[in-house]
């Protein structure tokens, strides 16, 4: 999306020099401690075990695998995302705590790769969620993965890796693309608009035609019913 660059990013003014030191420390710690949630779609996942274990050892950079979206900082998408998978990826992404980063590994996340002609594959990942970094290749070797992660660390340290804010600022655009794929009544359990308000990231791109459409179809979320055991339904004869 070309217009992202033109949106003025208002930095909070910090006059206290100590606050700046503190901010710098926080950014440094953020860049040196990254918990990844690997959403292992597609074939690229096979390059992650060597990157994590003894040969390339991600932990020396402070990168650790985590198992639930609440704990993680990086969403690692390792390969083609089919439309069905993409739904789950978006649900996962919205549940992660910000600041969060998305990395697309493999050419398939960049432009569909060899699945370009497939009817069931989402071609460009960054149409559906903001991606911080792509690591291209079919498939990229662990060295490339680690080099990419190092680049992300630099970006976080310098404060450039703020694409998660973009999801709130341009929610309408992302939601529109999601609706195009999943149908008009597509809805996630996360209330992104309220979150945008909470983070003070509401801008012109947040609300629009697509969010209005969402409001029309939105069903209020209900808590799941709690019960012990489960009654089995009779299989249809």
């Amino acid at each position, binding site marked *: 999306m070309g217009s992202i660059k033109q949106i003025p990013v208002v930095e909070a003014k910090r006059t206290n020099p100590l606050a700046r030191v503190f901010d710098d*420390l*926080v950014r*440094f*710690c*953020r860049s*040196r*401690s990254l918990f990844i949630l690997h959403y292992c779609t597609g074939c690229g996942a096979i390059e992650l075990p060597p990157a994590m*274990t*003894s040969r390339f*050892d991600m*932990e*020396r950079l*402070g990168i650790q695998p*985590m*198992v*639930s979206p*609440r*704990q993680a*900082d990086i969403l690692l998408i390792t390969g083609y995302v089919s439309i069905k998978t993409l739904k789950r990826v978006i649900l996962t992404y919205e549940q*992660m*705590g*910000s*600041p969060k980063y998305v990395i697309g590994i493999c050419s398939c996340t960049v432009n569909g790769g060899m699945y370009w002609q497939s009817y069931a594959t989402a071609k460009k990942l960054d149409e559906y969620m903001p991606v911080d970094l792509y690591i291209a290749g079919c498939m990229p070797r662990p060295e490339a993965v680690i080099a990419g992660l190092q680049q992300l660390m630099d970006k976080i340290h310098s404060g450039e890796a703020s694409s998660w804010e973009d999801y709130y600022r341009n929610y309408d655009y992302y939601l529109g693309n999601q609706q195009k794929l999943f149908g008009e009544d597509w809805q996630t359990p996360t209330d992104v608009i309220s979150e945008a308000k909470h*983070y003070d990231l509401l801008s012109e791109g947040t609300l629009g035609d697509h969010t209005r459409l969402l409001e029309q179809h939105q069903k209020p979320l209900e808590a799941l019913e*709690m019960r012990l055991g489960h009654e089995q339904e009779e299989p249809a004869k």
Partner: protein
Amino acid sequence: MSATELLIELILMPLVAFVVGMMMVLMMRRIAAKLQRRIGPPFFQPLYDIVKLHSKKTQVSHGLIHDIGIVMAMGGYIAAETLLPVPGMNGIAEKGGIITLLYLMMIPSLGLALGVGQCANPNGSIGIARALTAMLAYDIPLVIVVFGVAYAAGTTNLIDIIAVQQAGGFETWGATQMPLLAIAGLIAMHASLGKQPFEIYIAPAEIATGPMVEMGGKYLGGLFVMQCFQLYTTSVLYVCLFLGGGTNWFDFLLKSFLVLAIPMSIAYLFPRYRTEDLLRLMWKWPVMLGLIGVAFVFV
């Protein structure tokens, strides 16, 4: 001792515990890395993790009990630190005694159970059920061991227990006097750390880290801090009971790190037991060893 001195000690002891605990976490991760032929995390990694988690922008709370649960999990250990004598600082160890300490060490699990209960995540509930079962498993040998040591020393006061052991040097150490109890204690301590093969309630591949599954941001950060305290408390308690406490800081830290290194080096070589296997193992071997050890103490 004046009130100010006591106050300073009460503040200093948890702080020291936190710093030492972070180094213990580092040691644990480095040992894991060495065993897997990796390099392992950099020196300040535990600190980076904790600072990062506390500085996350999103802090998902599931309600008041969730918050209180985390505070209980940390607070239980922080209170326990003030009852653990370290060289030069006794805090309120004399008043509390070892029985209070054992009670305080159970509070974190109960706090977690409360907090996780409100998250309403099935993985979390399974994890907590397992954590409490595991607590039942290792607390029985632990209590037997502590009873034996306290009976042998004739007191439940940790300071006196340490003094008895330091009286005659190496020969009067708990570990030389009561080797069976020391072994049983080591096994119980390993289980209480919740590391492999006793890792039933974390089990990342099975129940997605159990109690931690819904925790993010500062909640997970709180649990990371709790882990530092947990490693410190467990190893220092063992040092106090069996290795004669510490005469000076060097001696003390060396002993606590060495004691902790034993379960850590075993941990990363094993996969995980099932819950019932853990119960069977804990109630059989350490309990048996502990009971025989206690019998020797009586004779």
